[in-house]
């Protein structure tokens, strides 16, 4: 009798989760599963073989390098932007904050065309650079520019809230003890930011790894030169090589899973630390 009750309670506590899985099955889980099903259709041997071609190896390496570079640049740029927006006061501050958050909402294709129109041979910068023999579009630099643009808001989103909540008393105390602005940042602000910084960088890294819309416009989609992993997947899928496309997609999915697990783990850890400090 008592056991029945426990059992029933267990069931009812699992109901919401079961319902969620049921709803998400056709929306998210099955499409994700199909990536792995198609990747492994020809057996593990085929899966491996389609991953070790020169094109795939290059595409994966190139994607990882671009993602890393994007994460580093936006970690610096984004943190600086968050610091300025949070700690200084100037007219138009809020509007600037909104503008800096826009890249997530703008269609990525538009980002691609805007970059082309600015840096391309007919663009403002492009025309100035042309006499110097510099043509940034359709090179790895173009891919980097596009990724910096579309992932910019992530650092702002993770770092600025931390800065906003940071008690100014600590900073003021540091100043009164004669610390410089830089010393204050290094010893007071930075330690508090660590969690947000890491989470933001990983989010940036993950998005950059999967970026497609802007990249396809500005990269020129050249194999062994500017073709990222998502572009490789697209062109393989378009030529009907579904297994090859899904094999690389599976690798990206696994990489993203690891990345997001890392993000969750870090978030949980810094959350605990924050709570302890609060006590």
């Amino acid at each position, binding site marked *: 009798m008592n056991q029945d009750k426990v059992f029933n309670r267990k069931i009812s506590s699992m109901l919401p989760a079961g319902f969620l899985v049921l709803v998400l099955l056709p929306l998210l889980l099955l499409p994700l599963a199909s990536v792995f099903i198609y990747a492994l259709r020809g057996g593990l041997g085929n899966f491996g073989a389609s991953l070790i071609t020169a094109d795939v190896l*290059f595409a994966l390496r190139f994607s990882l390098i671009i993602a890393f570079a994007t994460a580093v640049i936006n970690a610096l740029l984004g943190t600086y932007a968050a610091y300025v927006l949070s700690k200084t006061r100037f007219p138009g501050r809020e509007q600037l904050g909104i503008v800096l958050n826009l890249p997530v909402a703008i269609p990525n294709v538009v980002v691609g065309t805007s970059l082309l129109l600015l840096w391309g041979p007919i663009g403002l910068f492009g025309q100035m650079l042309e006499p110097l023999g510099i043509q940034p579009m359709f090179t790895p630099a173009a891919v980097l520019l596009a990724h910096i643009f579309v992932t910019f808001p992530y650092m702002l989103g993770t770092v600025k809230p931390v800065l906003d909540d940071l008690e100014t008393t600590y900073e003021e105390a540091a100043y009164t003890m004669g610390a410089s602005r830089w010393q204050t940042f290094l010893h007071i602000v930075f330690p508090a930011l660590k969690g947000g910084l890491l989470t933001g960088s990983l989010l940036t890294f993950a998005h950059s790894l999967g970026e497609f819309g802007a990249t396809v416009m500005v990269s020129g989609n050249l194999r062994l030169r500017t073709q990222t992993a998502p572009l490789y997947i697209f062109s393989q899928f378009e030529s009907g090589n579904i297994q090859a496309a899904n094999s690389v997609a599976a690798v990206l999915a696994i990489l993203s899973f690891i990345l997001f697990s890392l993000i969750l783990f870090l978030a949980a850890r810094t959350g605990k630390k924050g709570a302890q400090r609060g006590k």
Partner: protein
Amino acid sequence: MLALVLWTIWPWLPSQRSNRPRTIVLYGFSILEPVITRGIFPAFQKKWMAETGQSVELISSFGGSGTVTNQLIMGVPAEIAILSTELDAQRLKKAGVIRTETWKELPHKGVINRTPFIIQVRPGNPKKIHDFSGLIQPGVRIVHTDPLTSGAANWAIVAEYGAAVRQPGSGPDAGRSMLRGIWRNVVVQAGSGRAARTQFDSGFGDALITYEQDAIWSLSRGSSRLEIVYPRSTILSEHTVVVIDSHVSGKEEKLIKAFVDFLWSEEAQRIFVESGFRSVDERLNSSNPRFGHIHDPFFIDDFGGWQKAKLSIIDDIWRNRVLKELKP
């Protein structure tokens, strides 16, 4: 973690840098990808290695001919482009990417191979389509390419129009009413010949108007989702090679020229024939038993060349009249 980092940067480490091969940067229209990357280029690689002892690497990108042309106009660093239609080559000249019609100085006026436009239908031909005229019956769902981005689409429209006007005893309006009938039944417009094939292969539509090569390629890879219908009269598409001189540096000039010459060599032309293209050298075409017979083949020159056909058939009849008549 460290292993992943090391693996990622491995090819760029100083020890790996020295044996960088020379490169050829090629942009091509969609259906060329397998034959260039797996047939033509490996053969050239071997030949170049035997002659000079140097290794050479192909850097390539493939898409709809119109898309590729737009990329070239935006400034992608292509040294060689292979376009589906001469129309796109003319656009390159107009945009100043090349100064003159350089492709006309190449063998066969820049044409490397041909392929007739055919109709792909489902096995057993359930809709009883035996010619372009069979596509206008109600209830036929046609997968077509998009003339904005695809060379195949431009060829297909001229094929549909030309087949109608060349029919003995056809009236003055035959071409237009054929286009109207076919385009009423178009349910999907794909961005490139390759994309259209993928859509048809995945089970969508009853008929696809495309390159014979594309159908032969699918059949030779064991696809059982299609059957080829040869129209009585159809166009043979001609694919144009363009060398982008301004992107070829002085020290690469010889390599690029060798590759371009190789495209018309008997060895390369045989590879094209094996993968379903019809060679510009008629003698080689008997070696592929899959090529079907066409009663009345015609060429773009029969309509005054692309410059004229684009204005009169694509722009005037198809875009300005047929599409407007179809608007509900």
